[in-house]
Every structure is written in structure tokens, then in C-alpha cells.
């Protein structure tokens, strides 16, 4: 017993000493780490000595999955524009992932200057922790959505199952691929579009709409967690007869995998998908990047920004750009989240929160 006691006291002393020593170095290390990363900037600065006026600046744009190619090009365009305008070098870093996951990372401390996510609800989630103002969606024109998209069907060549509209999806033997609305922003637009269609064709009878989406999800063999996962399942694994996808993703798939293999079907009714953008106030104020961050998002509305959006298959809102890319987008009746679903908060609560209409589909015995 004495032995044990002595051991434990020795253990305690050593453990304590180590704790002290390490917490000491720990914070030192942490500090070193942060200065280490910020030192990256001055080094790049030396490479381009012509700008004495302003120090180079970095922005972090936290975005969702399908915008990778869009922002790849837009970032270069904006950097050139900003350089010409102010003489300052700007580097934009990108982070992509599922929209909800990305919002959560920002909430947990990922220092995003701007967020460009799949739906307003995910940006609304940043309001609670005080990262941005609840009126964020009024900051930029057009609901802070510089480009829009919608939901279409991607089918295999020749449309062998003859899928033309939403009600064809629940025909016998049709397999539908969509990501999980719980984890994917795009899938929530899919779900709401299907819901809206069912309401319209059943005199706004909610029970009927519920039955329709339930039947629809019985035709879904694989629920990937993100839009890109679903596209891969449909395109690479050759699973399913129809993929419910963002219009821009569907058009991109045609481009990436060849027009010969797939066709796009535009249903009679779909939804106006508005992927919004916002400044993360808390971060830009801390880093003093507000000016360039605002310019970055504002430039999305410029002619060049709109042209790049159209080029990457997003529907531009600027009339000139919309006219230019008119041929790639079909006209379709579009439901609106604010008008037809009373905004994201209501839609989320009703359909996607735990116990919502989507969960009811997957309740055993129902």
C-alpha cells in the first residue's frame, strides 16, 4: 500500500511537471504556428514588388460542392480586376464540401471571409453564433443570389424509360438517384420541387404531396450524402434511370462525360434555386478584409462575373448575360422558396428537421 502511494505521488509529480511544461510550450507552439502561416503572405509579397501601396491580401471563400469550377475561374478574374483597380494583390483560397458541412466548419471556427453556399438556410445558421447579421440576405441585390439555377432530370441516352415529368419518376421500374436531403443542399431543392409539383397537381392537398414524395423515395436505391456523390453513382456506376440534379451539374456532366451518353429533361415545373452569398462580418472585421470581400461578392454581379456564371451553367441575372446563354437553359415554371414555401426556415422545420416530412418517409412501419 505504501508502495502504491509512493508511486502515485511520483506519478502525480511527473505528470504535473509535464503538464506545466507542455502547456507552456503548447501556447508557444500555437503562436508559432499561426505566425508561421501568416508568414506565407509576406513571402509571396516579395515575389511581386511593384505594389508598394497596399499589402497583398488573402480571402477565404467557403463554398459548396458544385461551384468548384465556377470559382476556380472567377477567382482569377477577380484577382486581375482588383489588381487593375487598386494595385493590390489578392489571393483567394477555396474550400469546398457539402453545404451543411461547410456551414458547420465556419460555425466551428473556419475563418471564412465570404461564404457562398447552396441555400439560405445554411447561411442563416451562421446568424446564431454571431458571425453575421440576420439581415444578411438584403446586403446584395437579388436576395444576395448573383446567379440562380433549378432542378432538372438527367436521363440516359434516348430516354429509354420515357421520363418527361415528375409523375414519371414513380412509374414501376424507374430508379431515381438523388442525394440525401438531410445532408445535401441540392437534395433539399429536389425534394421541395417534387413537393411543389405534387401540391399543384392535387389541389394543394398536403397528404397527397406527402404520399407522392414517399412513393418517389421508394424508387431511390442509393442516397449519397452530397450532390457530387450522386452524380458519380449515376454516371460512373451506371446506377438508376434518372438523376435529380442541379441544372448546372447536369449540364456539366454532359460536358465532362460526353453528350452522347446522357440527356437533360426539364420537367413541367421546378424550383428557383438561389444559392446565396454573404460576408462573414465577424471574420472580415477581425482581419480587416471587409472592403475586398465586399468587392469580391459585388463583382459577381458585374458583366464579367455574370459571364463566368453563365459559362459554368448557372443562370445569370444580368439581362445581357442571360441573353447570351439563353440557349442552354429551358424556360420552365419555377416555384419560389419565399413565395411557395414561406422561406427556408419554415421549409426546413416542416420537411427536413428531425421528425419532418422527410423523416416520416423513413419511419418503420409507415
Amino acid at each position, binding site marked *: 500500500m505504501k*508502495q502504491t502511494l509512493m*508511486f502515485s505521488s*511520483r*506519478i*502525480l*509529480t*511527473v*505528470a504535473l*511537471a*509535464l*503538464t506545466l511544461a*507542455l502547456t507552456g510550450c503548447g501556447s508557444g507552439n500555437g503562436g508559432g504556428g499561426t505566425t508561421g502561416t501568416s508568414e506565407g503572405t509576406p513571402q509571396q509579397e516579395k515575389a511581386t514588388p511593384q505594389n508598394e501601396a497596399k499589402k497583398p491580401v488573402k480571402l477565404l471563400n467557403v463554398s459548396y460542392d458544385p461551384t468548384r469550377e465556377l470559382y476556380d475561374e472567377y477567382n482569377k478574374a477577380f484577382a486581375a480586376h482588383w489588381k487593375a483597380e487598386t494595385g493590390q494583390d489578392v489571393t483567394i483560397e477555396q474550400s469546398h464540401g*457539402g453545404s*451543411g*458541412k461547410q*456551414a*458547420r466548419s465556419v*460555425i466551428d471556427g473556419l475563418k471564412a471571409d465570404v461564404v457562398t453556399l447552396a441555400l439560405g438556410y445554411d447561411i442563416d*445558421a451562421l446568424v446564431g453564433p454571431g458571425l453575421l447579421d440576420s439581415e444578411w440576405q438584403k446586403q446584395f441585390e437579388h436576395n444576395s443570389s448573383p446567379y440562380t439555377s433549378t432542378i432538372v432530370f438527367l436521363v440516359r441516352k434516348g430516354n429509354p424509360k420515357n421520363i418527361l415529368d415528375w409523375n414519371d419518376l414513380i412509374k414501376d421500374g424507374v430508379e431515381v438517384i438523388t442525394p*440525401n436531403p*438531410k*445532408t445535401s443542399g441540392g437534395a433539399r431543392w429536389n425534394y421541395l420541387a417534387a413537393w411543389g409539383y405534387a401540391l399543384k397537381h392535387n389541389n394543394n392537398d398536403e397528404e397527397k404531396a406527402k404520399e407522392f414524395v414517399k412513393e418517389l423515395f421508394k424508387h*431511390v*436505391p*442509393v*442516397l*449519397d*450524402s452530397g450532390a457530387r*456523390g450522386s452524380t458519380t453513382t449515376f454516371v*460512373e*456506376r*451506371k*446506377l438508376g434511370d434518372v438523376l435529380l440534379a442541379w441544372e448546372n451539374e447536369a449540364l456539366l456532366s454532359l460536358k465532362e462525360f460526353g453528350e452522347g451518353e446522357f440527356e437533360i429533361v426539364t420537367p413541367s415545373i421546378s424550383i428557383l434555386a438561389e444559392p446565396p452569398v454573404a460576408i462573414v462580418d465577424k471574420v472580415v472585421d477581425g482581419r480587416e478584409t471587409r472592403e475586398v470581400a465586399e468587392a469580391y461578392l459585388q463583382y459577381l454581379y458585374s458583366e464579367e462575373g455574370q459571364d463566368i456564371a453563365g459559362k459554368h451553367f448557372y443562370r445569370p441575372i444580368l439581362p445581357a448575360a442571360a441573353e447570351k446563354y439563353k440557349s442552354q437553359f429551358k424556360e420552365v415554371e419555377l416555384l419560389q422558396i419565399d413565395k411557395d414555401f414561406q422561406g427556408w426556415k419554415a421549409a426546413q422545420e416542416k420537411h*427536413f*428537421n*428531425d421528425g419532418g416530412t422527410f*423523416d416520416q418517409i*423513413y*419511419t*418503420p412501419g409507415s
Partner: protein
Amino acid sequence: MKGSKPKAKAKSVLPGFGISMGFTIFYLCLIVIIPLSAVFIKTSGMTMVQFWETITNPRVLASYRISFLTAFAAALINVVFGLLVAWVLVRYNFPGKKLIDSLVDLPFALPTAVAGIALTAIYAPNGWIGSLLQPLGIKVAFTPLGITIALVFIGLPFVVRTVQPVLQDLEKDTEEAAVMLGAYRLRTFIKVILPELIPPLLTGFAMAFARGLGEFGSVVFISGNMPLKTEIAPLLIMTKLEQFDYMGATAIALVMLVIAFVMLLIINVLQWWSGRRAIAG
């Protein structure tokens, strides 16, 4: 424990207990205990009712069942084939044996996501093997069978690497004696060799099983993630997190944590117990 082993000295002449033990405990606390306690603290913010409802929700229960069954099946498959692989590697000589031996470690090294993507590509209906099985009506990818295959991949090294050394040390004498007494090969195996192998097999099984319960990266690609059918518990944690439901996520995490701890404790006690029996015998 101290009293039970007469050989062990109450007082060791060896130095370094204080410092090694101190460092061990300090490091363990810093890396494992303190971070894990965050899960407990977080869930303590829930009421009992909330906690209970979260962890017994039908979909959550279904996900435990799927994780449990597939991990169990995979561990079982690994016990049978892991033993065979270990046997072949220890007892026979054949060309390329060293290479094969190294291959066994690769599932440790390959990022789980890559394993998932590669396995999906092979076992999907249009993959090399998937397309062969398709006409037979067997679906692998996007079914519990697919999850099992991913978990077999993940758990294989655990079984092989625990059985191998024991098999190597197995004394020939008892086997010889059994043969001299006229026992058949199979009988020798079952009566003489197998009993010796049961502790490492159990350990290997339990490690593969525990690892399989928690596996995420490889499974999400091959499972299809269908609620109630192929949705695993770690995915539900992820799903809850993405809906900003930290409480719900940590509640499920807590359940899995406790299961993992209890399983490991059982293995270690079993092992200690069988070791003691060996000394006593």
C-alpha cells in the same frame, strides 16, 4: 493483481517507473481522456428523456443493428480467412511469400476513402466482379454485403497479425505427440492446435469487430446510405452534425464510445485471464 502473481516482485529494482508512468498517464490524458470527456460533458447538457429519445430513435436503432451485424459478419469472415492466411504464411513456403506478407498490412495504410472508392468500383453492378455477380442476382455494392466487404478489408490485418506470432511459437512437440498417438491431421488441428489459437483469434475478432463498428470513410461510398437499410451509425453522427445538432451527434457518439470501451475491456480481461491460466497450468 499484485498478489495473484507470486513471481512478480512487490518492489522492483528497475528504475524509471515514475517517469514512464507519469508520461504515459499525462500523454493519455492529453490526447485521449480529456478530448473524450468532451463528449460526456456535451451530452450532460441534455435531459435524460432527450438523450434516451435520441439514442433509441428507430432510425438510430436500425443503424446500430446494421453496424453491428455487418461488423460481426466481417469479423467472422476475417477469423476464418485470416487464420488461413496466417497459417499459409507461417507454415508453407511458396514464391512471393514475403510480398504477400507485406500486402496484409496495406489496409492499415490505404486511406479508407480510397479503399471505399476502389471497392465500389469493383463491386458495383458495372464493376469487374459486380458484373459477374449481377446475372446471379447477387448485389454487393449498395447493400449490407458491400458494407461487410469494406469491413473485411479494414479488419483483415488485425486477425492475421494476432494469429501469426502465436502460430509461429506453437510447439511442434505436442503436435508430434498427437500424431504419434495416431490422431488424424484434422483431429490434431481441432484438438491440439485450435485451443492454442482461440485466445489470439478472439482478440483478432474483437479488434476487427470494434474497428468495423466505427468505420466510416470506406463504408459511405459502398453502402448506398439508405435509411433503415444501409445507414451506419457513424453516418448518422455526421448527418446530425451537418444539421447543426451537436447534442444529438454527441449522444450517439457516446453510445458508440461506451460500446467500444466495454468491448475492449472484455478482450483485455479475457487475455489477462487466459495468460494467467497458462501460467497456473
